[in-house]
């Protein structure tokens, strides 16, 4: 009987038949793994097809809004769903509710600003913690790892709940006034850090909540990377009389730099797309830019989830949401491409961050 080789990625059944082997080509196809191959291929094309369908749908749906707003979408700060009870008007052959205006600048900036705040907080915290975890005795490191897993696994809606009801009020009562009293008094920084400290719903709290969600990603990846640094190199550094700090700065961090960068970009992608938690703590300010660190704002994702219901009846409103989704996708895909390029070099397993365990 013919025994075709089964190689990884190799053509099963590609080996020449032995004399006196199987007869029909159908039999050979069946025995050579043909059916499972066919079914596997049928499954494997699904993700790609879904992706293409998704893009096509979004682009088609977004075209009316793109034509309606033009560059206004990127430069204006006014977002108006229009008066749904007013007499419909026609612009460029498009019937829609009067007064509609789609300036997404606050949302785009809000998306970028919250993610930036999140990274500024999360990167040093995660790195510091990871450096320590890598040194802890195994059992203790396991317990801390459990906390990281827990934090990564908690549904984002719970982090939003905590942010809105527990963290937000504390930020408003203690943290924000403290920052305003210190950084806010430094000349030149008064505009951004000083002035009214808000009610705990806004840019700063959103950034904090996102930081909590990004930390497990960066910390656990960094920990694994640090553990992968060759012991001999570190021992060499110690033998040369380096202190812990010097060893970390001269040996450990340079060794894992590109991997850390990949982890950071991965976390950034997560922060940019986070929806529900931000929707609960952002303060929902659609048409204005926050005046300082504590002001109410909104992100693209939060707007989609908070306001889609208002838009459901008007096709142009829906179209504007498709355009928003497209904008968000462009932003996240760009970061993700960078992440893939960086992380592929370091490899490692896929991190099921935030969305699950």
């Amino acid at each position, binding site marked *: *009987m013919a025994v075709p*080789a*089964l190689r990884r*990625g190799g053509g*099963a*059944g590609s080996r020449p038949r032995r004399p006196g082997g199987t007869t029909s080509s159908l039999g050979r196809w069946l*025995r050579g*793994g043909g059916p499972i191959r066919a*079914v*596997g*291929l049928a*499954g*494997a094309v699904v993700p790609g097809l879904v*992706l293409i369908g*998704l893009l096509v*749908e*979004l682009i088609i749906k977004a075209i009316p809004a793109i034509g309606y707003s033009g560059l206004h979408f990127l430069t204006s700060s006014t977002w108006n769903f229009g008066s749904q009870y007013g007499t419909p008007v026609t612009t460029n052959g498009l019937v829609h509710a009067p007064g509609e205006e789609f300036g997404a600048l606050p949302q785009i900036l809000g998306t970028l600003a919250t993610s930036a705040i999140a990274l500024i907080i999360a990167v040093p*915290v*995660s790195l510091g*913690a990871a450096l320590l*975890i890598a040194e802890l005795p195994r059992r203790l490191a396991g317990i801390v790892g459990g906390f990281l*897993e827990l934090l990564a*696994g*908690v*549904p984002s*809606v*719970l982090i*939003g*709940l*905590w942010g809105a009801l*527990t963290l937000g009020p504390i930020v408003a009562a203690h943290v924000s006034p403290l920052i305003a009293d210190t950084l806010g008094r430094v000349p030149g920084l008064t505009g951004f850090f000083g002035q009214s400290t808000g009610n705990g719903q806004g840019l700063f709290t959103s950034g904090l909540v996102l930081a*909590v969600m990004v*930390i497990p990603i960066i*910390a656990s990846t960094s920990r694994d990377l640090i553990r992968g640094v060759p012991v001999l190199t570190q021992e060499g550094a110690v033998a*040369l*009389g*380096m202190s*812990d*700090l*010097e060893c970390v700065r*001269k040996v450990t961090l340079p060794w894992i730099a590109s991997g850390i960068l990949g982890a950071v970009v991965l976390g950034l*992608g997560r922060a940019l*797309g986070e*929806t*529900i938690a931000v929707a*609960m703590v952002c303060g929902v300010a659609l048409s204005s830019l926050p005046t300082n660190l504590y002001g109410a704002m909104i992100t693209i994702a939060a707007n*989609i*989830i908070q306001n*889609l219901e208002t838009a459901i009846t008007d096709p142009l409103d*829906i179209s504007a949401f*498709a355009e928003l*989704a497209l904008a968000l996708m462009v932003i996240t*895909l760009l970061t*993700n491409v960078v992440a*893939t390029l960086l992380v592929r070099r370091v490899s490692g*397993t*896929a991190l099921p961050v935030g*969305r*699950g*365990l």
Partner: protein
Amino acid sequence: MSETTSGRAPTADVGEWPAVRAGRKIANLGYRIACWIALALVVGPALWLVGGVLANAVPHWQWSVITTNTAGETGGLKQAILGTLLITLGVLIIGGTISILTGLYLAEFATGRLRTVLRSGYEVLSGIPSVVLGLVGYLVLVSVTGLDWKYGLLPAVLVLSVIIIPYITKATETSLLQVPAAYREGAEALGIPPTWALRKIVFKAAVPGIVTGLLIATAISVGETAPLLYTAGWSDFTPTLQLTGQPIAFLTYPVFAFYNLPDAGAKILSYDAGLLLLVFVLLFIIAGRVIVVRSRRHAE
């Protein structure tokens, strides 16, 4: 900060070590303290978050929460728990099948450019925010201008399936690729047909990894909110197996929708749902650890 000490040539006087400069000691101490603070900032929020939910949910906890349906803004969460379980089951069946097939094909059969293209398909998919997938799901499946299925079980399952595909696929592909080559070679040397070897030997060795992937998918299905708001809808009634046209409740909805309502009962219900979600997460983490430990023991 002094950094040059390490490069200094050894002194002739062997009996006496050069004194460590105070600046280096202080810098190192500062680094140590900063690390511990960082660790506290990582562990602290996790404890605070869990503690907060427990402190708000446990004192008001009544077992009737899991035996009665929601009535308006109060009552129980039975229909939401059942809805989440039903959606998750559907996701595991549809999304799980597609993902395992994709992972299998990529690891065992695909070659060259086809492999690169197929793989980048699911990798790009993994980077798309779930809210975008939810929006497209709404536009294509639920909305009148799409398939007009209305809110229901099937739209929710399909959207979540797309969200979890990258995770299970990655897990399947990686664990199949990690099966030792000796297993395949041994099977071939024994004259076992390749499909048989795949089914009985290679696949078996990859099972722990695949199960971990399925576990992650389950956790995601249970914990997602944004993509479900406009595909599943919300309902006060016990879910049925009707696929479309009938909204279905899910467990994350009350947390998001009830937390800031004026009614005290609504807030309690919000925290109750949070508590149930936390219990789910803990179960998944424990299950994941058990699988890792058992498969490691198996390998030895």
